[in-house]
């Protein structure tokens, strides 16, 4: 699909730019100047970003962005199931991110998975006298109470970096004392522009503290791969992994959905890194390529079209046995997918969707919507960089609006203008648009449904999109009096 340039009736560069200007009109001078470069009509053919990105958030505009801690604890570390993740600082950050990202985990909570909220609960005295002593005590308590934990992460919240604590040395000392990997991550929320720096700091921390400290017990095989950048939202990893195994590959470790510390540590021995969320994990793919010669391949498991493309691209990196299995798998699932499309497409054909998600899905899910006959009339990221926007240009129809870190004001204005049949974004946006009678699906958390990755994911995705767009409840919104 991404080769042919699609057009949306009524949407031109001019109409989009006019819509953008109308939105920018409300800004004070300085704000408008900062925001303008981040909003633009898509140039499908160019294959490169039509907007600026990864810039400091403009104060006071109601951005959807989170912080570095959210990128570190929420995105990268949280999903690793067999580690105790300590939110180091006051009680809030860990509490707000407790279980809200839906990175599901196998195992028994508190025994061999630690889907819980650990914190040093900084009080005034910790700010004044520093938290390092408390950290050391805390690490001992964690080790004692959770003996099956394979490691402990110490994830810094804002105050830690401001009061000059040295969690790196505490981690080092305690790691030796307790004979367990203790990983310090300086992901203070005030650092950087968004969650993105949190991903980057975490990738570096894996590079410095984890990779190459373990080896797989079983002998390696030519089909060993690692699934990078899948966080098991609603079970996505379980769906993607079973599909990769069906085409004959051994998924030796997953970064980091339902992740296991030791398998992440032994990933330097795989043959190929398959990366789904480019934004959050491209750093370590590049490191593993440089240091261990592991090639990496971006792939897309949203919707039958993209799945087919990806399976074949993956197959091409392996021998005939894998490629045969790829074709068998495609042949097996395509009729099922076609049946799904036949059931839902008639009710979704030509419907318009607008997306605003984090760093991957604003482009990666467009294929799945198009498989159902829907058109993406606007998309944008909270924390993407230029390389993301480059990849987005061919995925979106010509001249449709691209918005980088849009304010709620801008997003509302665009929605009023474009009148989408569905908006895919986050919990902070959901009820704003549902009040307007616009159907909505959370595309961060799959609105507590999923998985959406892989073939069984598409079945659930299609059902949910049809449910949202065609629910009779929307017909009740307009009162008859």
């Amino acid at each position, binding site marked *: 699909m991404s080769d042919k340039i699609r057009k949306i009736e009524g949407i031109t560069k001019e109409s989009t730019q006019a819509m953008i200007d109308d939105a920018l009109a*409300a800004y*004070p001078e*300085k*704000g408008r100047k900062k925001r303008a470069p981040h909003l633009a009509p898509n140039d499908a053919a160019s294959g490169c970003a039509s907007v600026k990105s990864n810039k*400091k*958030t*403009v*104060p*006071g505009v*109601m*951005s959807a*962005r*989170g*912080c570095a*801690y*959210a990128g570190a604890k929420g995105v990268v570390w949280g999903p690793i199931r067999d580690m105790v993740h*300590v939110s180091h*600082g006051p*009680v*809030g950050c860990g*509490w*707000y*991110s*407790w279980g809200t990202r839906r990175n599901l985990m196998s195992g028994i*909570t508190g*025994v*061999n998975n630690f889907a*819980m909220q*650990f*914190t040093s609960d900084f*009080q*005034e005295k910790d*700010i004044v006298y520093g938290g390092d002593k408390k950290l050391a*005590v*805390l690490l001992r308590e*964690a080790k004692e*109470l959770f003996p*099956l934990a394979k490691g402990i992460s110490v994830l810094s919240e*804002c105050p830690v970096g*401001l*009061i000059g604590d040295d969690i790196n040395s505490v981690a*080092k000392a305690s790691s030796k004392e307790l004979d367990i990997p203790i990983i310090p991550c300086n992901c203070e929320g005030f650092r*950087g522009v*968004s969650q993105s720096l949190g991903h980057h700091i975490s990738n570096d921390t894996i590079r410095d*503290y984890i*990779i*190459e*400290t*373990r*080896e797989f*017990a079983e002998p390696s095989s030519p089909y060993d791969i690692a699934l990078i950048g899948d966080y098991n939202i609603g079970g996505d990893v379980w769906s993607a992994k079973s599909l990769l195994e069906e085409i004959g590959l051994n998924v030796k470790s997953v970064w980091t959905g339902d992740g296991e510390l030791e*398998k992440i540590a032994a990933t330097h021995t795989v043959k190929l890194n398959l990366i789904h969320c480019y934004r959050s994990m491209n750093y370590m793919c590049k490191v593993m390529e440089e*240091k261990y010669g592991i090639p990496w391949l971006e792939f897309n498991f949203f919707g039958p079209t993209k799945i087919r493309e990806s399976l074949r691209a993956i197959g091409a990196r392996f021998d005939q046995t894998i490629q045969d299995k790829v074709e068998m798998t495609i042949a097996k699932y395509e009729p099922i997918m076609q049946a799904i499309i036949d059931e839902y497409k008639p009710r979704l054909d030509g419907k318009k969707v607008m997306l605003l998600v984090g760093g991957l899905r604003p482009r990666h899910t467009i294929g799945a919507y198009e498989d159902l006959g829907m058109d993406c009339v606007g998309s944008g990221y909270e924390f993407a960089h230029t390389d993301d926007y480059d990849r987005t240009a061919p995925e979106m129809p010509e001249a449709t609006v691209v918005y980088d870190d849009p*304010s709620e004001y801008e997003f509302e204005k665009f929605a009023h203008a474009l009148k989408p049949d569905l908006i895919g974004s986050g919990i*902070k946006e*959901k*009820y*704003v648009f549902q*009040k307007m009678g616009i159907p909505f699906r959370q595309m961060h958390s799959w609105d507590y449904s999923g998985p959406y990755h892989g073939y069984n994911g598409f079945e659930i995705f299609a059902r949910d999109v049809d449910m949202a767009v065609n629910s009779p409840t929307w017909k009740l*919104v307009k009162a008859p009096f």
Partner: protein
Amino acid sequence: MSNLLGLEVKKIVETTPEEVETVKNWINTEEYKEKNFARQALVINPAHACQPLGAQLVAHGFEGTLPFVHGSQGCASYYRSTLNRHFREPAPAVSDAMSEDGAVFGGQNNLHEGLENAVALYKPKMIAVFTSCMPEVIGDDLTAFIKNAKQKSVVPKELQIPYANTPSFNGTHIHGYDSMLVSILQTLTEGKQIEGRCTGKLNLIPGCDFNTGDYREYKRILKEFGVPYTILADIGDTFDSPCDGTYNIYAGGTKLDDAADSINGKATIAIGPYSTPKTFNWVKDNYSGKHVSMPMPMGIEKTDAFIMKVAELFGKEVPASLKNERGRAVDAVTDSHQYMHGKKFAVYGDPDYLTGYVSFLLEMGARPHHILCSRGSKKLEKELQALLDGSMYGKDCKIYMNKDLWHLRSLIMTDPVEAIIGDTHGKFAARDAGIPLFRFGFPVFDRVNKHRYPIIGYQGVVNMVTEICNKFIDIKDETCEDRYFEMMR
């Protein structure tokens, strides 16, 4: 060795099922409970959030007011998403996105740019500024910053910008609620006190209450009384607004003029002493009329106290409709006492909710066996103990201050109870113990409309009795042997 830890490369050793089984049983033992309670530094599954969340709740309670987080943008998104998930409603709030440079130069520039943009885009009638960690650690002087903003006419002179210091590293969301509320009232009532003027109204401060049904219930009760009122920080509509095709960013809240004039009120009742101490003390010293601080009216006796206080303050008889309503609640209570009598509960939550749960349970002849507050106080402990001492059903009940939900798990696995009253966060302990969880507190992320059904007042009693008794009967129907499965319950 390419990693900094200097650890030699080990083969992966999978945890064995036996090990898992051993530890699985071990964490339910008395021995583990001792270790768990010996914790000094590690907090696990605490049952409270940090101050700014409470401040944001207050801000949403005033007409046209935009909550403004002076600090990191991530905090604002966390407070907003928490309120979104609990109320299933929008929670508009901005931050001035302080980051590394803020750490060095302070947050004035961020604040000014933030205020300017917020006013331009969202046209608030008031901006309530509160702080997250960064400005508190580096000591930003918000009084000066805001004064400078007005001087540099970044914002209109007359725009009211109350602010509160709400450091996350002490207290909880209920203390942030208090600080922000007193600051807003001070700002709005400044220069509004008029000798001899009496609005004839009751100022009702509901306290840090996340149940929109409670706000509607207070209004309905006062309407039955015929007592004119101003609710101070009224989120009843903000977080329970209609879906009619239009999005209204400021969907409700106490009218600013009413709030301003409240200083001339006939009487002020501050509900929830633990979430309104600063506010109440300031009101006592500055508001005309009478001032009373009362616990959340949960259960018949505490609702009686509230009703009688309103009657006393306004010299009114209790209307027949409310007497009748009381009678119907007592009828529900006496008709279903057999389903709750003697049943042991574990209860946890904010202090003002806890005193309510304990009174309600004791009234029903139920036993609040484990009472836990993850940020409690001596005062709270004494008040709870007094409630327990006043009833034979309080006998072997115990109070745990400053303990978390991992402590609670040890308690209920070693000293079992029949149910938990708390919020969504208790679901993991409830599942391990195989007992039901009644979600009367905050936050509730995993059920619908819990916040729409009041837990205060006589109707609150009927709602709690109905949910608890019917769940116990559900369990009996679902778990009894076939020969005990019967028509009558």
